[in-house]
C-alpha cells in the first residue's frame, strides 16, 4: 500500500470519509441493504463522531427510553400496550432507525444538536403512550382508574395549550399524535392498515389521508379507552371536521367540538374564536369538576413564551449564518411537535442543550453544513413517510433545507398581563395553527413564502404537493406562475402525506434528481445516493 494511501486511510479512520465524490467520498448508499435499507454496517463518522453517536445517541437513547418507560407508567403497562396495539409494536420498537435515517451522514455539532431534538420527541412520545396505557380501561379489566378520570383526549390538531389551566390535574393526551402522526415518520407501513380499514367501510379514497387514518384507527378498534371526554377540532380543514363525526360514533363519550373560524385577518372573527375557547374551558370544568386556574394558565404560557423566544433566536442564527446546527428534518418535526403539544419540561431541557451547542458554533464559526450548495425553504405540508428526505437531499445534492413552513406557524408570544389579552392572543394562536395560515389561509398568507425566502436567505424552494389536499391543490398553478415571474428555482415534491403507496420515496428522489441534473446542471455530491431501492424500509 502506497504511503499516500496509508495516510488517507488513517485520515479517513480518524475523521471519517469526506462527503463528496471528488474528495474520495463516503458513498453512503453503499451502506444500505437492498430494499430494507437496513445497514450492512452503520456509518463510520470518524473516531470522535462515531463514538459520540454510539454512546450519546444510540446507547443513551436506548437506556433513556427504558428509563422513560419505567418511570412513566411502568414496564407492565408498556408490555400490555405493545401486545394490544399495532401502532406501538409495529412502530416504536425500531425508533433508533428513525434516528439513523434523520441523522444519516451528519457530523459534529449538527449531529449532536439534531439528535437532542429527536431525543425530546421520543421522550414525549413515550410519555403520551404510557399515559394512554396506564389509564386504558381495556388494559385494566374495564376499570376506570384515577388516571383515566384525570386524562382528557383530543384531536392532535387541538393545541395542547388550551388545557394549561388544568396543569398537574388533568393530563391531555392527543388521540392520534402517537397512534398516527409519529408512526408515519418512524414506520411508514403501520398507517396503511388504518387507511385501508376506513376505506373498507365505505369512505372514498379522495379525502385527506391524514383524516382517513385518524378515523381508521377507530375502525380497527386500535384506540385506547383512556379518557372520559374528548375535544375535537376543525383544524386544519373540512376532513378534520368530518373525522369528528366518525370519532364521535366510535368513541361514544362527551365530545366538545372546537370550531375555529376560517377567516384569519378579521378582528371580529377573532372574538368568536376566543368565545369558542371559553366554551371549551366550560366543557372541561363541567366534565371533570376541576375549576379553571388563571395562575396555572399564566405560568404555562410564560414558559411557552420562553420556548418561542429561543425559537426566534435559532431563526436568527439560521437566517444570517451558516452556523445553525439543526438539520431540516429535526427542525421541522421538533417545532411542530413542541408547538402542537404545548409546553413541557423536556422542551426546555433540550433547548438548553441546543443553546450551548449553537453558541459554540457561533462563537467558533463552525460551518455546520459545509457542503451546502443551496439554501432551501420547504413550503406546504411535508410527506410524513419521508420527512428525512431533506437529510438525503443534503447528502446527495447539498440542498440544505434551512427552514420549512410548519416551523413558522404559531409564530407569536401570548400576553399574560390580563385575561382578555391572553384570550385574544390564544385565539390568534389558533388562527395561526399548522396548515391553517400558510397552507389554506388565503393568498396573502400563502405568499408569505417570498418574505421568508428573503429573510432566511434561501435561493431555492422545495414545494410540497399533497395530492389529496383540496386546499393547496387549487393553488398549484398560481405558485408555478409566481416561481416563473420571480425567477425562483423551485421543485415540487408530490406525496400523499402518510400514504407511501401513492408516491414512493424513490419517485420523490427521482424527481429531485431530474431537477438537479436537467435544470440545475449539477453533479451529485454522493452518486451512490442517486438511485436505490428502499421500498420495504421503515
Amino acid at each position, binding site marked *: 500500500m502506497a504511503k499516500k494511501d496509508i495516510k488517507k486511510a488513517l485520515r479517513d479512520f480518524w475523521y471519517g470519509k469526506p462527503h463528496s465524490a471528488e474528495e474520495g467520498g463516503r458513498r453512503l448508499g453503499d451502506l444500505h441493504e437492498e430494499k430494507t435499507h437496513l445497514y450492512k454496517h452503520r456509518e463510520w463518522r470518524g473516531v470522535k463522531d462515531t463514538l459520540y453517536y454510539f454512546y450519546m445517541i444510540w446507547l443513551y437513547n436506548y437506556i433513556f427510553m427504558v428509563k422513560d418507560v419505567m418511570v412513566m407508567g411502568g414496564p407492565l403497562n408498556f408490555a400490555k400496550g405493545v401486545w394490544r396495539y399495532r401502532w406501538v409494536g409495529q412502530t416504536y420498537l425500531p425508533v433508533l432507525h428513525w434516528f439513523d435515517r434523520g441523522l444519516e451522514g451528519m457530523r459534529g455539532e449538527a449531529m449532536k444538536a439534531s439528535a437532542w431534538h429527536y431525543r425530546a420527541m421520543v421522550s414525549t412520545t413515550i410519555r403520551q403512550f404510557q399515559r394512554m396505557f396506564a389509564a386504558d380501561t381495556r388494559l385494566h379489566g374495564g376499570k376506570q382508574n384515577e388516571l383515566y378520570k384525570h386524562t382528557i383526549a383530543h384531536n392532535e390538531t387541538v393545541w395542547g395549550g388550551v388545557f394549561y389551566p388544568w396543569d398537574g390535574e388533568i393530563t391531555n393526551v392527543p388521540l392520534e399524535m402517537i397512534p398516527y402522526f409519529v408512526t408515519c415518520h418512524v414506520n411508514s407501513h403501520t398507517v396503511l392498515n388504518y387507511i385501508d380499514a376506513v376505506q373498507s367501510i*365505505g*369512505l372514498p379514497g*379522495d379525502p385527506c389521508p391524514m383524516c382517513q387514518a385518524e*378515523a381508521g384507527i377507530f375502525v380497527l378498534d386500535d384506540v385506547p379507552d383512556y379518557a372520559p371526554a374528548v375535544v375535537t377540532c376543525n383544524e386544519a380543514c373540512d376532513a378534520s*371536521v*368530518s373525522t369528528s*363525526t366518525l370519532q364521535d360514533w366510535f368513541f361514544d363519550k*362527551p365530545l366538545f367540538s372546537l370550531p375555529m373560524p376560517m377567516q384569519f385577518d378579521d378582528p371580529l372573527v377573532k372574538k368568536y374564536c376566543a368565545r369558542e375557547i371559553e366554551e371549551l374551558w366550560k366543557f372541561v370544568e363541567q366534565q371533570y369538576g376541576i375549576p379553571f386556574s388563571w395562575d396555572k394558565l399564566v405560568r404555562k404560557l410564560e414558559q411557552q413564551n420562553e420556548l418561542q423566544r429561543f425559537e426566534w433566536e435559532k431563526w436568527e442564527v439560521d437566517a444570517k449564518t451558516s452556523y445553525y446546527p439543526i438539520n431540516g428534518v429535526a427542525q421541522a418535526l421538533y417545532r411542530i411537535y413542541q408547538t402542537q403539544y404545548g409546553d413541557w419540561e423536556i422542551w426546555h431541557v433540550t433547548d438548553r442543550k441546543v443553546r450551548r451547542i449553537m453558541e459554540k458554533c457561533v462563537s467558533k464559526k463552525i460551518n455546520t453544513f459545509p457542503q451546502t450548495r443551496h439554501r432551501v425553504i420547504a413550503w406546504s405540508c411535508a410527506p410524513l413517510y419521508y420527512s428525512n428526505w431533506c437529510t438525503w437531499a443534503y447528502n446527495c445534492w447539498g440542498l440544505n433545507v434551512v427552514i420549512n413552513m410548519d416551523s413558522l406557524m404559531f409564530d407569536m408570544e401570548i400576553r399574560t398581563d390580563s385575561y382578555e389579552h391572553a384570550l385574544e392572543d390564544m385565539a390568534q394562536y389558533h388562527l395561526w395553527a399548522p396548515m391553517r395560515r400558510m397552507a389554506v389561509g388565503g393568498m396573502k398568507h400563502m405568499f408569505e413564502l417570498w418574505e421568508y425566502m428573503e429573510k432566511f436567505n434561501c435561493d431555492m424552494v422545495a414545494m410540497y404537493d399533497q395530492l389529496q389536499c383540496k386546499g393547496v391543490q387549487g393553488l398549484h398553478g398560481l405558485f408555478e406562475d409566481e416561481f416563473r415571474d420571480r425567477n425562483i428555482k423551485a421543485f415540487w415534491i408530490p406525496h400523499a402525506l402518510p400514504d407511501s403507496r401513492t408516491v414512493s420515496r424513490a419517485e420523490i428522489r427521482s424527481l429531485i434528481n431530474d431537477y438537479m441534473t436537467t435544470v440545475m446542471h449539477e453533479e451529485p455530491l454522493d452518486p451512490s445516493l442517486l438511485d436505490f431501492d428502499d421500498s420495504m424500509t421503515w
Partner: protein
Amino acid sequence: MKTRKPDRKKEFRCRVVLAGSENDDPEFTKLIESCGARVVCDRYCYGSMESRQIIHIPEGEDPLLAIARHYLETSNCPRFMPQDEMRARKRRIAELAKEYKADGVIIASNKFCEYWSYERVIDTVILRRDFGLPVCSIEKEYINSASGQLRTRFQAFVESVEIKQIQEEGK
C-alpha cells in the same frame, strides 16, 4: 280470473328520499326516476328541505340576523359539529322518510365533498341498522357522467326495495 280487474299500474315502483351533498343537476333526479324510484323528498344542499324553507323574521328583528339565525338553526349540513347535531342529522333523514312515506333513502355524496363522504359512511350503517330503512349509498361527480353505472345501482336498489315490500306483504 276472467272477471278480475288488473291492479292499477303504479307510476313508480318505490318512493325515495334523496339525501346528500350538492346536486343542482336535474338530470340526476331524472335518472333516479327513470329507474322507477320517485324522489318524494330532496334533502341535499340545494334541495327544498335544506334551502327552500320559510325564513321567519320576528317582529322588529333585522332580516339579516333572521337569515343568519335560520341558517344556523335549521341547516343539516354535516359541517355543523355539536355532538347532538352530528347524531340528530341521522334521525332527521329517517323522519323525512317517515313524513313523506318513503320506502328507502338514496344518499349521494359528491366526489371531493369531505363532509358528505364521512356522513354517508355513517348514514349507510345507521339508517339501515337502527331505522330499518333501505339505503342506496353512492358517490357521484358534480356533473353526472357515470350514468350507466348509477342506473344499474338505482335499478338494483329499486328491485331490492320491491322485494322487501313483497316479503313484508307476504308476512
